[in-house]
């Protein structure tokens, strides 16, 4: 049977909000770390046949990330959007995504980026896998379908690990594993003018609303502000040897070398 790959993508805020977090096409974009996951899915389906469904959760104004995923090569876009999902933390988000993925059954692989660049928790992929009760490998650098198994590779701490996974399975894809393709103009035209994004609310899922949103979230984001990093410039004096000595001391102080 042809593969069905679900890729979870997030629209991330690019501008620090002044009054609460508002996502719109002006202030948000597709999480850069999700692009390699999308690329891996599209490439695998090009090789093995099948379909790619892009799934996202957020306000309706975020549908554009799904259009963009379709422009890149995904076949279908599903947006999970319900005011009751507002203020969901990563756990509640994972439960909601898990419920949506169940509704998309049958599926073979669920892909995530390793993290997002607006909050960087890296939790949603693993938590969703737990909520679906399927195997998970994180930070995958390559994936091949060797029917009926999925063979994946993961490079970590100087080791290369290979896994065979039975399907369905979930993976988070390492950001440096593949170069996401550029989006052709014709893809954008087709995605935005001809393809409809399916929008689901909580009513479409078998999920207790108490498990999501503020009520279902054990953690709460209290504030989000842009951080400015203080940079210091210091001129070292003395002979080259003396400057090198001081430099080594300074680096040692940071703990980078011992």
């Amino acid at each position, binding site marked *: 049977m042809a593969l069905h790959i679900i890729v979870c993508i997030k629209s991330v805020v690019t501008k620090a909000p002044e009054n609460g977090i508002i996502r719109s*096409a*002006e202030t948000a*974009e597709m999480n850069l770390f999700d692009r390699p996951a999308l690329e891996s899915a599209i490439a695998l389906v090009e090789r093995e046949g099948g379909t790619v469904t892009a799934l996202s959760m957020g306000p309706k104004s975020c*549908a*554009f990330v799904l*259009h*963009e995923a379709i*422009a890149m090569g995904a076949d279908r876009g599903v947006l999970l959007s319900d005011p009751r999902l507002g203020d969901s933390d990563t756990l509640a988000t994972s439960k909601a995504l898990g419920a949506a993925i169940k509704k998309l059954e049958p599926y073979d692989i669920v892909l995530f980026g390793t993290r997002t660049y607006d909050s960087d928790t890296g939790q949603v992929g693993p938590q969703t896998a737990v909520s679906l009760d399927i195997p998970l490998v994180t930070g995958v650098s390559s994936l091949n379908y060797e029917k009926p198994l999925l063979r994946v590779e993961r490079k970590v701490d100087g080791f290369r690990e290979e896994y065979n996974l039975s399907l369905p399975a979930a993976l988070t894809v390492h950001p440096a594993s593949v170069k996401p393709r*550029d*989006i*052709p*103009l*014709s893809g*954008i*035209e087709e*995605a*935005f*003018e001809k393809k409809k994004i399916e929008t689901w609310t909580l009513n479409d899922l078998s999920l207790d609303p108490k498990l999501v949103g503020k009520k279902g979230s054990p953690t709460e984001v209290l504030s989000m502000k842009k951080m400015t990093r203080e940079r210091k410039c210091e001129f070292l004096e003395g002979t080259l040897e003396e400057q090198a000595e001081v430099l080594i001391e300074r680096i040692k102080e940071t703990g980078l070398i011992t």
Partner: protein
Amino acid sequence: MNTFLSEKNRAVRRSVRAFCEREIMPIAGEIDREARFPWEVIEMMGKLGYFGIQVPKKLGGSGMDSLSCVITIEEISRACGSLGLCVTVHNSVAVYPIMAFGSETQKKRWIPPLARGEKIGAFCLTEPNAGSDAAGVEATAIRNKKGYLVNANKVFVTNGGVADICLIFARTDPDAGRRGISVVVAERGTPGFVVGDLEDLCGMRANPVTSIRLYDCKIPAENLLGEEGTGFQIGIMALDTGRIGIAAQAVGIAQAALEESARYANQRQQFGVSIGKHQSIQAMLADMATELEAARLMVYRAALLRDQGKHFSRASAMAKLYASEAASRITDMAVQIHGGYGYSKSYPVERYYRDARVTRIYEGTSEIHQMVIAREVLKDYAK
């Protein structure tokens, strides 16, 4: 900002910008210095549909609207004016006239390779003695049994050094004034088709601008675009569209100049503070940003009118006049903000300054545009 852009338009900007920042920006200085046409990038741009932006999908294009087209040109020009020029000329004054005036057979023959960027198009109107006075074309296309015998000396041909498909404006009737001009399509490689040396220009140096000469070139009759004597009309219609593209190019160059200047003003320290704290620099940045936004709105408006099927000729002339003049002022201020470094080739603003300058000259000088606009304004209020 630009609240009337659709999500599709924004997606176009994001994707073109990402490509240009990665593939074009890093080499823009080098290809300017070396006057090199970067085929390796052109090939990628072809695959992304930048050479057939408004061509229908069935002919190999991207099938987009004018607004998406100008955003694409603006973003390419933000990275490199020369490539912005290549793309706008190819799309607006080479591909578009064939789409608008070509027969089905001609479209099927020429458009797909042009739309995929496998062949590059050129618009050959200007001659040593026919610039602003386009009706002064001296090139001749003499009809005989087999087709046309064409003799032409075309100068300052954008894309000339790499063009495969050239729209040649030539006289089919020596006595009929502007009604005696026709357009024949000459393909590179035809005996008598000669590409001149690369022009040693002030700016747009990565675009292979050359002369193209046709010596007793035998062009088959089926290469006539439209009808005999309609060349002037084809030229005017192509330029109406082309001007929106040139205006978008000016906006892109000016955008790059503004960004570079604001970054520099934040970073450069004089008198113990960043120069952005000085009122005179702030005044320049404010004027640059305001003029740029005004120019951009005019360009988008002209494109929107075209998309809506409304009369856009005056809007496109105004957009081209204003955007090109604004880009010259903006890039001039960018050099000024950078001081001595702005005049150095170590910084990109001197390239923006040189590249912006020609937008006031080609596809109709500012003065010709003033004349055209004034004529229409006077007509509005004539008794």
